[in-house]
Structures are given as C-alpha cells and as structure tokens.
C-alpha cells in the first residue's frame, strides 16, 4: 500500500481544517460542473453545502469521497489527498449517498456488519455498535429483513446507520433528509447537531431551514462556483437588510402586479420579489419604507392578509445571492444548466 499524500499545510490542516480544496475543477466535456472551488471546512463544524440543483454540490462530494477525480486542483480530507483508491482516507470518513444503494439480498443487520468489518470492527464491539445504530435509526425491528423489501425512508435510515457506524471523524451526507418523513428528518437533524464538536459534518441540502437550524458554517454554490462561504451568523449579518413581507389576499393578480411596479419604483427599495402568495421587499432605508409601503398598497388597491417586517433568513440570503431560477436557467429535468466552456 502506498503512503497517503498529506497536505502541504499538513500541520495546520491536521489541527484546523477537516477538509480543504484548492482550485478544485471538474469538467464533463464542455460542461464546467465545478469551477476552481477553494473551500476550508474547520474541524468539528457542521457545514452546510447549499445550492440549486446542478450547482456542483454532489460533484464536490463525489470528489471528496474519492468516487470522482477532479479535472484540476486538489482536495485534502483529514490531511490526506483525496484519490480514487485511498482506503486510509476512508477509515476516517462516513458517507451517505443522496440515493443510497445496497445489496437487496442482505438483511439490514448483515449490511451493517459488513461495513463494520471493513472498518476493522469485530466481535462484541461490532455487535454492540450495530445494535446501537439500528436502535438510533429505528431499524431494530427490520434488522433481519432483506433490504430489498425496505421502503425508501428505511433505506435512507440504513444509509445513515452505515455512515455513522464506525464513529467517523468526518461525515459527508448528500441530501440526507430527502426521503425521510418529518419525524425521521427531525431525528436526523438532532443526531447531526449532537455530533458538533465530536465530528466534522458536511451535508448538502435544498432545505434551508434545516441548515439554519443546525449548521454553524455554510457555503453556497451556484453553477459550479463558490458564491459565498462562512459562519452562518456572519453571513446573515453581512446581508442583514430589512425585509418586509406582504401577503396579498388571493385573487388579486392584476392589482398585485401594479403594487410590485410601484414598489420597484420607490427610491428606498433594493429588491422586490413577487411569488404566488408573497411579495418580499428588501429596502435600503427602513424608516422611509415603513412610512411608504402601506400608502403604496392602498394606492394600488391591494387587500393584504398580512404585513410584517422580518429578519432576513438564510433563504432570503440564498435568493439574493443565487437569485430565483428562470425558465431559461433550467434543463429538462428541472436542474440549473451548468455553464458550458469552450475546450481549451
């Protein structure tokens, strides 16, 4: 076995960074899926990787777990350079795929025992860890059933169990709550939050409320590029602009459109985003806005169900940085089109 390559900043990385990437780039032909990603994930953090579909989250995770090779740049996990055939790195890593696949002929217990043995567990320690993970993921009753008969949620929970079984120092979860019911989602989020300080957790998700609930750092990707990265509180503070949310009563399409035009024309607005049932107004001058919004509502003849001044949420920051996808941005599957580049 070859000696794993360690980071050039090995000593610093070993103490501070669980994951660091430098100029990480991935191209699929003319498609640029990941564009010079520089990322540092501190040890012990719960790190949220955000972005619309096709932003490069899964590509990043696949490179970090050694399932894909970067076109350029490099990545270090636990101070070890990531490669396609690097068992030593994987001792330190727990990984859950966004669509976890297992051997249908195995039982849940057998799968966890296989994973445990690969991680060097044996005997009573293996049995107790397997029992513990089956209990924590609510699969004890189904442990002796074939995985082929598991539901999507059960497979997701089994995936979480196998990722956590060996108590990894770094846990990478790709869309971990996507197939879970509300109770399972709550339990998993509590499980992840409970790992803070013990393990480094990186997880990708579309559910911004989940990130806001448990993450201490976030990175937002868009079309393969890192848009922003940092502590969640700093990110929210940096983008802390007053927001007003207006919820018009249903059935006022034309008058709401008129209101949106009036709001956009006002000198104290920086952004007006109108959805089906909500108008979100970002303002530069809260005092002028407080005095000016309601007269515009009255002038447009719009009846409101609610009107509030709100703290900016991560969703607001996300929409501000990434922006809502237009029809031209989406491909046939509803994914954001990646950027195409000419062959160099």
């Amino acid at each position, binding site marked *: 076995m070859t000696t794993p390559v360690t980071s050039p900043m090995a000593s610093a990385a070993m103490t501070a960074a669980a994951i660091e990437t430098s100029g990480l780039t991935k191209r699929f032909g003319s498609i640029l899926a990941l564009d010079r990603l520089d990322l540092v994930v501190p040890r012990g953090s719960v790190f949220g990787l955000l972005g619309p579909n096709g932003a490069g989250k899964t590509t990043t995770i696949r490179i970090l777990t050694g399932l894909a090779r970067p076109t350029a740049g490099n990545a270090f996990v636990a101070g070890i350079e990531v490669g396609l055939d690097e*068992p030593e790195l*994987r001792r330190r890593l727990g990984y859950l795929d966004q*669509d976890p696949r297992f051997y249908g002929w195995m039982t849940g217990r057998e799968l966890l025992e*296989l994973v445990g043995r690969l*991680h*060097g567990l044996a005997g009573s320690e293996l049995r107790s860890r397997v029992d513990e993970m089956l209990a924590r993921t609510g699969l004890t009753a189904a442990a002796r059933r074939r995985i082929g008969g598991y539901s999507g949620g059960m497979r997701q929970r089994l995936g979480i169990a196998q990722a956590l079984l060996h108590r990894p120092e770094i846990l990478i979860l790709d869309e971990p709550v996507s197939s879970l019911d509300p109770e399972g989602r709550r339990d998993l989020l509590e499980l992840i939050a409970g790992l803070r300080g013990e393990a480094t957790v990186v997880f990708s998700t579309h559910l911004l409320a989940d990130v806001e609930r448990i993450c201490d750092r976030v990175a937002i990707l868009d079309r393969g590029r890192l848009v922003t990265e940092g502590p969640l509180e700093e990110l929210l503070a940096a983008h802390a602009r007053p927001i007003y949310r207006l919820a018009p009563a249903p059935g006022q399409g034309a008058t709401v459109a008129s209101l949106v035009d009036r709001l956009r024309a006002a000198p104290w607005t920086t952004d007006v985003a109108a959805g089906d049932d909500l108008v979100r107004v970002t303002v530069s001058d809260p005092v002028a806005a407080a005095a000016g919004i309601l007269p515009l509502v009255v002038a447009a003849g719009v009846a409101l169900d609610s009107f509030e001044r709100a703290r900016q949420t991560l969703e607001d920051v996300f929409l501000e940085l990434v922006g809502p996808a237009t029809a031209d941005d989406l491909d046939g599957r509803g994914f954001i089109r990646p950027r195409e580049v000419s062959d160099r």
Partner: protein
Amino acid sequence: MTGFTVLLRKELLEQWRTTRLPVVATVFLLVGLSSPLLARFTPEIIKAVGGDQFQIVLPTPTAADAYDQLAKNLGQFGALIAVLLAMGSVATEKERGTAALILTKPASRGAFLVAKLVAIATTLGVSTAIAAAGAWFYTFVLFEPLPLAGFAAGAILQWLALVAYAAITFVGSTLTRSALAAAGLGVAAFIVLGILGIVPAIGRYLPTGLGAPARGLALGQPGVDVLGPTIASVVLIGVLVGVAWIAFRRQEL
C-alpha cells in the same frame, strides 16, 4: 488488498444467497451424471430410433468415451456458465451503485476485484468437483473405474480453463458498465480461443490446450505434459486480473 477477507466472505455469501452456487452446482451435477450415461447408451438409442433403416456400426463405448463426453459438455456448458457468472460481477455493481457503497469504505479496488473473481472461481470449483465426482461414479458403474487421483487432477485442469473464460469476461465487466458487453467479450474470446487452439504451436498454451493433459491424467496415460499449459493459463489469469485492476483503479464510480 485492504478488506479482501471481508469482501471474499461477502462474495461467497452472495453466491449462495442469490442461488448462483446451488444452481450452477446442480447443472454441473447433471452434466457429470449424464455424460457417462450418454456415452454408454448413445449407440443403443441410435439403434432403437433408427431400427433396421440404418446399418451404422458403432464401436463399443468405453470409459474414455465417457470422459470425452464429460470434457465436451463441461467445455461448452461450463464455459457458458463461467461467462454468465462473470458478466455482471463488476458492471452491475457499478451500474446499481453498490460498488460506490463498498469503495467509500476502507477497501482497496484490488481487493474488491480479486474477491469477486475468487468467489466465481470457488463456485466453478465446487461445481466442477461435483460434476467430476458424479461422472467418475457413473463411469465406474457403467464402464470401469478410472484412476481417481488422475481424474481429480484432470478436473482441476478443466476448472482452470473455466476460470480463464470467467477472467476474460471479468475484464469486460470491469471495463464497461454493461453486463451484456462483458458477456459478448467472453463469448468472442471463447470462439477466438477455440480457433487459435487448432494451431499446435500456440494451442497448447491456451485454456483450450488444457483439455489434452486433463484427458491424459483422467485416463491414466503416461508422460502427460501438464506444466506448460497449466503455467500458461495461470499466467493468463494473472495478467487478466492485472488488466482489470489497472483499468478499475482509474475509473470514476
């Protein structure tokens, strides 16, 4: 070869649970039992079917005919089953995503591949042993006892040839994500090796060349050249595993 023992255990369990081992062993047993029967009763069957219309004089069948029938059947059915066993071994795991499950754990890609091929070889080995045992017993009952040690050694050479066909298909399964493409490579190799096997200079060093020494051993003939063909096939299998490993360790999953 990190994780080899654990993965081999999993592969052997899979051979049993997915009924590959029991099914292949049963087919081989039928081949083993039926070969001496066919050799013994073929003249009588032809005579019974043809009646007085045919005046074909067939020689009296011998134990050597029983062995030749076994070798022919194993060389055809056995090779086909070797291809079937190996065709999806890696390709299907890549396609279904289970290879990614295993290879994000502390298991080397070499261990992943070798464990699979050893499990396939084990299924073929157990099945060939069962076929040989059945054939030897019926040959003893219907004809005469053949030398047991030589018969067993011949069976080992037949098994080695089957493992070589499986290894060729295994390379195809590693190179592609399609089990059908892998099977195509295996069948094509079977045909090409059959044609090349006719050329004496190289034929004896191909898997098809193991047939002659296997026959000599089984029938207790003296001066059988075993070493050259055996080493050639072992080297071929080793080279094929090396090619599969070199290709697989560079593949994205």
